[in-house]
């Protein structure tokens, strides 16, 4: 049901990972919509790790970090205002750990995300059906967690607004989907009063570059099962490279291309319930970790008002 808004959760969460712990679910980057007054809630667990990372374009390990593991548990909620207008929300609790060295792990609640997902257009073609979506999202830290201690920090601390356009084509049980997103990120404040990027900045304010992402996937969509393979790209529109043997920093130019597989299964014996599993891997990147992540989640959907019995066809409607 919920895909952890790949960008906010993924990027802010995994810093050196960029794209995302994708927990498949409905939400900001798929074509599933809740029906009117249908409400879906769930929890996902994500485990992401990297050994290799890119210092600029130089791929290396760091024996003073070893394997950097980021885990999270995320609560998500998704409500169908109408069957073409959904409101999504989520907040994760994140904790980090380095398997080597002496750096202390960090933990805490991270960023709250809200999305409005609108499907204004569905067109029946001679073969298949095309839907277009417009999504706007907002995320902001739920507290003043430390951002100056990368890669141990649980997030980057910026308040983000994103706009996404998405197209979804389905024919029979097959579908293909593509989306593009622009993310505006607010500036952030450090605890320290000075920092070096490509020059010394005598302020605690950091200018955060905006980002672009693209996502494409192909999959099958059946009565109880949705499975897809996807490719994601993140490009940060500015920022600087991690200097040689330096630590990462919030305003690094973080780019990544990753592949993923996502599966969502609705139980035939109780179609309120669904589970999902996903995995993603960063193929290539810049100033990010070569993250491999796995996630699992479970969701429960029901109608707020008395309604006809939920059928899987209703649940899996795309319009």
């Amino acid at each position: 049901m919920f895909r952890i808004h790949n960008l906010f959760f993924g990027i802010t969460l995994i810093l050196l990972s960029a794209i995302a712990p994708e927990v498949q679910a409905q939400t900001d980057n798929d074509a599933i919509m809740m029906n009117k007054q249908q409400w879906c809630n769930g929890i996902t667990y994500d485990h992401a790790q990297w050994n290799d990372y890119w210092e600029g374009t130089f791929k290396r390990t760091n024996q003073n970090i070893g394997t950097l593991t980021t885990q999270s548990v995320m609560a998500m909620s998704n409500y169908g205002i109408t069957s073409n207008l959904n409101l999504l929300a989520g907040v994760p609790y994140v904790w980090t750990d380095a398997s080597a060295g002496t750096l202390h792990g960090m933990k805490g609640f991270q960023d709250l995300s809200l999305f409005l997902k609108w499907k204004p257009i569905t067109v029946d073609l001679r073969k298949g059906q095309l839907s277009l979506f417009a999504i706007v999202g907002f995320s902001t830290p739920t507290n003043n967690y430390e951002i100056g201690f990368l890669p141990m920090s649980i997030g980057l601390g910026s308040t983000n607004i994103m706009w996404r356009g998405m197209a979804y084509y389905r024919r029979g049980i097959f579908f293909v989907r593509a989306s593009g997103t622009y993310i505006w990120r607010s500036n952030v404040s450090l605890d320290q009063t000075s920092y070096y990027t490509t020059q010394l900045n005598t302020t605690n304010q950091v200018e955060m570059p905006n980002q672009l992402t693209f996502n494409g996937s192909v999959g099958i969509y059946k009565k109880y099962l949705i499975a897809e393979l996807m490719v994601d790209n993140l490009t940060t529109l500015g920022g600087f490279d991690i200097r040689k043997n330096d630590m990462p920093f919030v305003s690094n130019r973080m780019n990544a291309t990753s592949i993923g597989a996502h599966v969502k299964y609705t139980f035939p014996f109780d179609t309120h319930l669904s589970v999902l599993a996903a995995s993603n891997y960063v193929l290539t990147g810049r100033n990010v970790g070569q993250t491999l992540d796995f996630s699992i989640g479970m969701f429960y959907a029901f109608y707020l008002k008395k309604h006809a019995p939920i059928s899987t066809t209703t649940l899996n409607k795309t319009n």
Partner: protein
Amino acid sequence: MKKKYAFLVIPAFLLILVPFSCKKTISGATANIPALDAGNEDLNAGNWKTFLLSRPDSFAVAAPSATNSTAYLAELNEIKGYQQNLSSSQQQQIKYWVAGGVLRWNEIMRGLVAKYNLPPYQEANGTYPIPNSNNPFAYPLFPFANPPYASRAYAYVSAAQYDALIACWYYKSLYNRPAPYKVDSTIKAAVTVTALPSYPSEAAVLAGVTAEMMKLLFPDEIANIEQLAIDQEQATIMAGAAVRSDIVAGEALGRQVADLFIARGRADNAGKAVGTPANWANFVTQTLSEGQIPWYSLESPQRPPMLPLFGSVKSFLIDSETVAALIPGPPPASGSQQMIEETEEVYNYVKNPSRDNIKLVEYWADGAGTYTPPGHWNAIAAADFIQQNYSEIRWARNMALLNLTLMDAAIVCWSTKYKYFNARPSQLNPSIKTLTGIPNFPSYISGHSTFTGAAATLLGHIIPARAAAYMQMAQQAALSRLVGGIHYRSDIDVGLQTGISVGGYAVQRAEIDGAE
């Protein structure tokens, strides 16, 4: 979609206005400060006590042309030529430099230290290459501007600027040639109008002395810094504050003074501070023979200790006997009850750190990639000095005292660290995880505590109204190292006391240098 949902959808998509209305450009703390405005021009500063210059007139500066001479009048046209049509970038350039030469060079030095303060990356075989001043452009670039190196770099530049400005002030008084804006009323002054004579130009002296010092301290940056020196000189002319002959005489004087400091720097033992593998092994053997647990590198691959012989660097303010006398007694013995309790205390701080503690640690960390703790105190001092309306030479004198005492703090601290070579808390208890990186040198005494004790003592003498505030900052900085899990209580307490003692020598010097 029904109209009632428009209230949700339309505002949501109107968030598109945010990027256009929220400006994200940031500016530094000193981006918009006014021109230097000295309450007192310190016209007698030619008599102040120098560090290396034997007399203020050791280097000859020829008498300038009279202000009614043809030569001088011709020079005024260079200023007028600029002032006919200053572009906005030229106005920015003027505004930047007239805020204060000592201030701007101090900011530039902090930037250089931050740029070069990165530990070398290991070779494939797990050993570490060492920066080589004879091949400074080869990786790892020379220098590795770690805290001791940085303290020495700040100190040499500040002391050289100070001595050079004493000579400059001597000749200003001697020749008493007024500034161009006093000679010709059509010349606009972008600086604060004063009675200070302009020959030789103090801005040019600073440009010359600082650029020249790069040959010793940041050889890869000579090209960049020479360009900045030209920018400062051009800005001073455009500002109507100096003619070309003021600049030429000033720059030449500055470079000659710098050469004295460079010669001293090449023989002050800093070049040997890295030590040899035999030295490094000897520290371990020595410590074991004393029945103590020796320091070892917590980096992987293990890295040789940082500048173990820095304690032998020649101080400006204190002699080597005094350095030896300032070294405190030993830390608690390995395995002693006190050491067990102190280690436990460190663990208790980091096992579940509060956000406030994390903030304290990050605020004062000044670790790899930054301008170092001495740089942080330069930033604190500079921000406060801006409010004090000092003359350029008093700025230079105060910065010199601050940086010389910080260098002395490094010398005494490093002498102590390598005399006792004791283990970090994470060695005695590997469960101790830290809130900042553990620097690659022994624990006792804490560098931060020694630096901040010395800086707070000296700055508290220069600005007595802030003395209590500086000491409180010093205590916070020292505490941050315990709270961060990288030091024991003894390291910070004894370190702070030692730093305060070191600072006392700078205060003694301040009382007799003629500036008070």
